[in-house]
């Protein structure tokens, strides 16, 4: 919590308040609030079609919001009666399809956003191209570069006019898996070096968790939670976010005095309400111990190398997921196990409506 509090004292680079945008009858964004502090990376994470690109385009000025406001730095660039055209927003953007100008060579592409004077000097273009490690190909045409190189040129071109903010729309989605991982780290380094605030769109959780300072989760055209990657994973604010980001176990329960009674006994609660609740814990928090008389049986095992996912059916027919890191501790399908939740659980107001059956185990 303190971490975030500190950061909010920093100046905000981008702020969106209640942004709404429809395309005809199709809602694309309904009430998006977003705030990014200077110098930080925010990932906009969500399933396909939830409106991520639209949010970026609204910030860049490529679309006009139906409602809401956009501020870049101290300036309101979109709002009631205000619409600053994109060329005056000092916002850089890297398009998903890169959008390099096919009739200009790499150097001219990189220099496109510069003033005539800077262009004639040629210094800045050279600077950004060497920042992305591509000064050697400056005379080539865009179609003579590989996908990864094109992507870096697009980044250099966006950085050249020294924008305060840079927006990246699924910057890695057109690359193959190996390239993606390499470029991710590279882009992060480049952006840190250029000291810009960045918002990038992705539907890849791993990308968002590994790259961003903060993640805004967008589901059904709304931003449902914005937090650091750790908090988002450990403390999702809703059932929806918990399922969208990683695996989760859910059980009905009844909360009282900071603890919750459920099928697995009385468990400590990290936060939450009183009364009927639904509790959530991650599969890696569920510890299994081999026990002949245990209440669960392993029904399925998926092995991934660095970890494995086990599915346990309790005698009450509830199915729980458990993730074990490291080598298998002799757990096999069909084996009976004892289960224990290793860390405080999260509780959400119960979606079930009626009081859950709570029966203490053992």
């Amino acid at each position, binding site marked *: 919590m303190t971490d975030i509090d500190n950061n909010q004292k920093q100046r905000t680079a981008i702020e969106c308040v209640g942004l709404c945008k429809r*395309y005809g009858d199709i809602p694309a964004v309904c009430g998006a609030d977003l705030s990014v502090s200077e110098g930080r990376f925010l990932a906009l994470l969500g399933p396909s079609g939830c409106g991520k690109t639209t949010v970026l385009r609204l910030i860049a000025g*490529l679309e006009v919001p139906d409602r809401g406001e956009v501020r870049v730095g101290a300036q309101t660039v979109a709002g009631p009666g205000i619409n600053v055209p994109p060329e005056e927003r000092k916002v850089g*953007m890297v*398009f998903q399809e890169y*959008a390099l100008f096919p009739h200009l060579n790499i150097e001219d592409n990189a220099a496109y956003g510069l003033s005539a004077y800077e262009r004639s000097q040629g210094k800045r273009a050279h600077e950004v191209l060497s920042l992305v490690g591509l000064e050697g190909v400056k005379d080539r045409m865009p179609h003579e570069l590989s996908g990864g190189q094109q992507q870096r040129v697009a980044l250099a071109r966006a950085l050249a006019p020294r924008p305060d903010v840079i927006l990246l729309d699924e910057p890695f989605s057109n690359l193959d898996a190996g390239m993606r991982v390499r470029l991710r780290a590279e882009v992060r380094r480049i952006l840190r070096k250029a000291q810009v605030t960045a918002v990038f769109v992705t539907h890849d959780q791993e990308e968002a968790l590994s790259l961003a300072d903060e993640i805004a989760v967008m589901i059904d055209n709304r931003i449902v939670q914005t937090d650091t990657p750790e908090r988002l994973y450990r403390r999702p604010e809703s059932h929806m976010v918990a399922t969208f980001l990683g695996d989760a176990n859910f059980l009905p329960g009844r909360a009282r005095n900071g603890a919750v009674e459920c099928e697995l006994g009385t468990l400590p609660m990290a936060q939450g309400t009183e009364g009927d609740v639904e509790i959530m814990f991650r599969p890696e928090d569920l510890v299994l111990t081999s026990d002949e008389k245990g209440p669960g049986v392993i029904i399925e095992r998926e092995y991934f190398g660095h970890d494995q996912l086990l599915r346990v059916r309790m005698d009450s027919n509830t199915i729980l997921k458990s993730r074990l890191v490291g080598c298998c501790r002799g757990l096999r399908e069909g084996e009976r196990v004892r289960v224990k939740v290793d860390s405080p659980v999260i509780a959400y107001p119960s979606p079930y409506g009626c009081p859950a059956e709570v029966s203490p185990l053992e």
Partner: protein
Amino acid sequence: MYRHAGFFFNDGMFIDRADELNFWSGKNRTDMAEPSGQHTMDRMVPPFKPGGARRPPLPLMILAAGIAAATLLPMAYLAIRALESGFGVFEIVFRPRTLSVFLNTAILAGTVTAGSVIIGVLIAWLTVRTDLPWRKFWATTTCLPLVLPSYVGAFALVGALGPTGMVQSLLQPLGVERLPSIYGFPGAWLALTLFTYPYVQLSVRGALRGLDPSLEDAARSLGRSAPRVFREITLPHLRPSIHAGALLVVLYTLSDFGAVSLLQFNSFTRAIYVQYTSALDRSAAAVLAMMLVMLTFVILMTEYRMRGRALYYRSSSGSRRPPTVVPLGKWRLPALIFVSLVSLMALGVPLTVIVYWLFRGLMAGEQFAPHAQIAFNSLIVSGQAAVAGVMAAFPIVILAVRHPGMVSRVCERCTYVAHSLPGIAVALALVFFGARYVPALYQSMAMLVFAYVILFLPLAVGSLRASMLQLSPRLEEAGRILGRSSGRVLWSVTFPLMRPGILMGLALVFLSCMKELPATLILGPTGFNTLATRIWGATEEAFFARAAAPALILVLVSAISLWIMFAHEEGSGSRGRFR
């Protein structure tokens, strides 16, 4: 001559025509039945999401709407002018002379269409599906008559078979006093049929090639005889393409001025011209023009109705097995004679006649200097129209591609109205309009250029549109975000990337203007001659030698325009890097 001559060369050539048809049908381009199973330019274009449903900038909208209105205005005025004579209208419409003109036109259109369909379907079938020797060669030569503007064809016919024509002068020493007259219906029918059947042939050819041979095989395996298969399977598949080709032929015939006037057949276009030049009261010309416009409308509407009901077949694109070849057997020789005869009549004779008269002229010491001046005239006025046309097309295209919606659709479609009407009616409308409201421009070059622009604007719109559709809006957005205003982005990104389309639009409008006859004849300043009017004038006065050189130049011009469209078709697949 109908302005779509040449708009048809291979399968993809339906595009512009298709656009125009869609104007009338109100259908989406993609709903259009494609007579061939091949792709059109449109389908090669990746479906870019438009840059959102942003409202188009007001200046752009005003500009585009202004241009669209300018193309409609003269036509609207024609109606007003025709109705001005009040009850006189009825008097003109129900004149016996008008009735005979109407009948002449209807009969000509009907017989030319029938002849073209028969010749076109036969040749298409022979060159696609049978073991006719040298099929490729025949397929090409039988299409080539498309390069002959109808008045050049008529010139060739008159120059060959006319009273002082080539054949007559060759036979004179043998004691032949007089050939049967080619003037009137027979000549007009022959000329128009010979120069329009390629439309049917090309459209049917596309359909035949796209036809899935397994359908026919399946029918054969189910016990049907070959002729029954042709009737029950093949023909229904060809019907849409025959319709499409026949429609082009009908429209061509209705709007043709060159052939009917030179061959002195009194159909609408000639009657309008005669009324216009000879009568003091021009109301009759206006009423006749209005009738012709309405006839064109009726045909387009009828066609649309029929198309709406007809079932359209699309061939599956998966099967690439070559269709089964039908052995001609004892019909081989007659088939060969048939295609040779058609090629000879439609291509061999005209070219021979042109060359013959060119030599006769040379021998007789015909001066070529005046031709240079005339060619220069053609060049200048067509060049101006090409530049103006492309400039006028830009706002329409930007609106249509980047801001699709009601307004842009209406604007785009408006530009097709003048284009799909007979040139002489459009020209006449402009004369009336100019004489009444802008007398300063009446019979000026500016008026002629304006006429060319509204007649050929869709050609420019089509080419620009195709090339703009290939241009991702992301590129323009990238330019904006990098700090350049929309105007500067247009200049530094959009225009350079659309260069192929711009050049193509310039070329198409330029070449069409070079060939245009009735508008030039009616709207050109007094004493102003172009290649087209020179051929027409010289032929009418039987100075064949004088028409030969311009005719040759025009044939080359049409050949180039066809070649450009051909090359563009071939090339459009390989321009991936601009996407």
